[in-house]
């Protein structure tokens, strides 16, 4: 998670639902009404890079109130969690958020949701195994001698559906596993020749 990491920056742009706790005259534009003051209690979707700091910043208030409170985004909502509990492999995470795990990790840092953390951990483990399985199949590592390009042409219906639903992190994992298997195979072939 470096400062220059493109995926980390894009993850920070994911929006989460926030509620303002203070009246703020100049911030009406956040609620699409630039001419009107932003009233306490207004619900606005804010990107993580903004929401995070507003939620933890000290307002100087005696009660320790912060500028905004936030809820879990829909991507981590109850529906999704129930679906993940049922079968992690059947949920296209990408449809929830292209940076699903990045978003989830961020939210875990901001709030303590023990149960959600456990579900996410199980989800990743189950899906990672599936990703590895597909990565070995694609590009004809096991069969089909000359699957040179390593294109996605080789995979059938269900697999394709699963791979389409991978979030950005899982995609990286897939690419690494796939390239690794391919390089290993190429090396083995080279050994035989000489």
């Amino acid at each position: 998670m470096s400062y220059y990491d493109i995926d980390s920056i894009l993850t920070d742009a994911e929006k989460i639902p926030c509620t303002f706790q203070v009246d703020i005259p100049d911030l009406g534009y956040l609620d699409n009404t630039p001419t009107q003051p932003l009233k306490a209690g207004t619900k606005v979707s804010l990107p993580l890079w903004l929401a995070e700091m507003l939620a933890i910043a000290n307002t100087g208030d005696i009660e320790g109130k912060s500028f905004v409170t936030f809820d879990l985004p829909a991507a981590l909502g109850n529906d999704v969690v129930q679906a993940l509990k049922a079968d992690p492999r059947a949920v296209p995470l990408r449809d929830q958020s292209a940076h699903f795990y990045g978003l989830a990790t961020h939210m875990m840092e901001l709030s303590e949701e023990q149960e959600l953390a456990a579900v996410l951990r199980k989800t990743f483990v189950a899906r990672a195994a599936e990703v590895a399985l597909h990565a070995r199949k694609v590009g004809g590592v096991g069969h089909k001698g000359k699957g040179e390009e390593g294109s996605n042409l080789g995979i059938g219906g269900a697999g394709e559906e699963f791979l389409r639903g991978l979030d950005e992190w899982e995609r990286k994992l897939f690419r690494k596993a796939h390239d690794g298997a391919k390089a290993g195979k190429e090396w083995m072939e080279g050994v035989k020749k000489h």
Partner: protein
Amino acid sequence: MPMYGDLGNKLVQHAKRTQNLTHLPPYQTELVRAVTREVRDLDKDVASLLEPFQGSFDPSADQATACTLLVNHLSMRRNKRCLLAYHRTRTDKLEELVWSGSDVLDLAGQQAGGGNGAGAAVDSGGGSSLSPQEEDYFRQYGDLLAAYKGQWTDVDLTGSLEPPRDLFIDVRVLKDAGEIQTEYGAINLTKNSQFYVRQGDVERLIAQGYLQKLG
């Protein structure tokens, strides 16, 4: 609902795409300009917000202003990160290109052929996909690399890491490359001619696309 940071985000999405490309897409002159303008506007807002306080602003006494200032500050910080990340992605790519031996002129040709310019970079210097600053960076990094390589005359640092199968190879000339000197005398590389040469002598020319290895 357009808001602060949206343009910066667009820039980072460009960077994301750039990472997966082998060539360098056109520099987003307009977008970069728009993001820096946004930072300047935000800075002006902050200055005018703080003006009445004469340098003695107390955040706990005026929460609304404190929050506005925080939002402005965070937006500027966000834009800065987007700008830096965008440019760094590109300079990383430029360094890679220097190491692999392509030159700026090649890049310009690629861009003209591709015709995929978003219109933004066209005004920035003869159809190159680099900004003038980037061209400068490219040149100077190239000089730096050449100076570094100069310390070892018998090792080619940018040469291929693959051990050669044969010392001599057949090559066909794709573009006129003029005369080169080899251990076995000079050869004149004219287009479409074919030669049996020492691989080490022509490796650079193959990498630059002047020659094609046969067989």
